[in-house]
């Protein structure tokens, strides 16, 4: 009887063991089915994120073109990137691996460059800037000339633009009043003398300045970065310079440059200043030019900030419109973004 019971008990144990093992195996398989779905999704997300990350990097560093970047880590997985093509058809391939699951994403994109807005006149004053004009905002030996000049500042026969461009008739009258009171007769360009013209401005200069200054070559954000002689680009090597903060160029210092100069803050110029290209002042910018020397801006000066004061006690201030100088900056314009042409995932 005892042996019989033992056999029965052992038999039942074996049956129960098999039963539990089977249920365990099913449960494990069920779990792995769900987990595999998660792994596939994660691998796809890693591959996609890799593309986004490298397109963003490529925007700032074009030397990454036609190169591979293996073994990047993200979200517990890895991804390999290869980039190829010209700007007009960039192909980014991202191969991601997550927990032994692989996913490949292939994206084609085209570089979308920041457009060139050359500035509507030798000097453009936004409505906000005109509202903040002081009584003697522009005063002294000043020439603002909207006729076309070559890169050396000589008149050429190109189309003329306004000496000072403003947004409307009210602003035009304010500016004419101010320059008449200060006996400034050298505001030349299209539309007669003084050449102050209301234009239809369609450019958001603040937004444009931010786009242009997105990847500057030179950043001047502390006074210590201003030396006795400052070169912010040359004709052969134009630069994007971003002046961010309250910066002063005193009369023992000089600055010259070529390219695009974006100013956000307060720029006070006492010393010699010579710039070829486009100068954009935006946001809360106050430009103070208190000259004891000479200053020349060849290209276009756009003032879309809050204030401009040009007070020349000795020396000259010249703002000459120049298509040649503005054409130089074309190559400097960065890629704003990549437009996605196709996305395989």
């Amino acid at each position, binding site marked *: *009887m005892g042996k*019989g019971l033992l056999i*029965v008990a052992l*038999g*039942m144990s074996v*049956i*129960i063991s*098999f*039963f539990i093992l*089977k*249920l365990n195996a*099913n*449960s494990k*398989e*069920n779990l792995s*089915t*769900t987990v*595999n*779905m998660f792994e*596939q999704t994660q691998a796809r997300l890693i591959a996609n994120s890799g593309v986004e990350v490298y397109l963003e990097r490529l925007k700032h560093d074009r030397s990454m073109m036609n190169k591979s970047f293996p073994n990047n880590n993200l979200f517990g997985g890895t991804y390999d990137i290869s980039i190829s093509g010209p700007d007009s058809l960039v192909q980014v*391939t991202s191969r991601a691996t997550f927990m032994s699951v692989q996913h*490949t994403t*292939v994206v084609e994109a085209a570089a979308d460059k920041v457009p060139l807005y050359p500035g509507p006149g030798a000097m453009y004053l936004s409505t906000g800037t005109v509202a903040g004009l002081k009584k003697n905002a522009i005063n002294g030996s000043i020439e603002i000339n909207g006729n076309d000049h070559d890169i050396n500042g000589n008149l050429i026969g190109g189309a003329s633009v306004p000496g000072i461009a403003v947004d409307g008739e009210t602003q035009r009258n304010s500016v004419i009043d101010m320059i008449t009171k200060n006996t400034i007769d050298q505001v030349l360009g299209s539309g007669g003398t003084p050449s102050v013209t209301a234009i239809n401005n369609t450019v958001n200069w603040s937004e444009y300045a931010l786009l242009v200054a997105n990847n500057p070559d030179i950043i001047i954000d502390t006074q210590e970065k201003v030396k006795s002689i400052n070169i912010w680009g040359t004709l052969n090597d134009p630069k994007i310079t971003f002046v961010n903060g309250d910066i002063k160029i005193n009369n023992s210092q000089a600055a010259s440059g070529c390219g695009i100069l974006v100013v956000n803050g307060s720029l006070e110029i006492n010393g010699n200043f010579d710039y070829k290209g486009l100068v954009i002042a935006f946001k809360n910018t106050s430009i103070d030019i208190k000259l004891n020397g000479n200053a020349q801006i060849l290209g276009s000066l756009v003032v879309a900030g809050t204030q401009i004061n040009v007070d020349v006690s000795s020396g000259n201030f010249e703002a000459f419109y120049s298509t040649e100088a503005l054409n130089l900056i074309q190559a400097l314009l960065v890629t704003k973004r990549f437009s*996605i042409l*196709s*996305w*395989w*995932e």
Partner: protein
Amino acid sequence: MNFLMDVMGSSIIAGILFLLILKLNLYSSNANYYSDNELKLQQNVKTLAEVMNYDLRKIGYKYDGTAIVTAEPTRIQFFAEMNAPGTYGHGTVDFVEYYLGDSTEASGTANTRDKVLYRIINHTDTLGGPTLGLVDFRFSYLNSKGIATSILDSIKYVKAEFWVEPYEHVSNYLTNQPDSSQFTYWELTINPRNI
């Protein structure tokens, strides 16, 4: 007399044990079957989800224009290049159609409600396949704000919902009647990047 009592007592105990083993065996068979069915359900629904996930993400790939041609609850038609870059056949845009058949087309299974989901490429390459226990399927289409739309140009998200049941119903071992059917519901909302 004592001997007879011993034999009867041990027979009763043996009988009870035998019934217990029988019951355990039946229970374990039933539980095994139920568990297998559940696993199959899970695998079937995952297969369907993988296919849908793969195909719907391609909507509009390499196609200029309105990629979605038909947007109905049980039928979708769209243009997309379905071959991966660098593989044979890449470079030609395909016309893809999905639609749900009716339950009469799946007569080989005990489940009377399962249906076949058809995938047709370029009007000719029809892939019906097994039902995988699919009993219902529904597409819905959302615009960029996540609001349902029927305007083909505005569709930015495609939501697919499907209900999958086992091929066979599991019988209750006591009543011998089919239990209420197991089912799995799966939902995925896809934002095809090319539309």
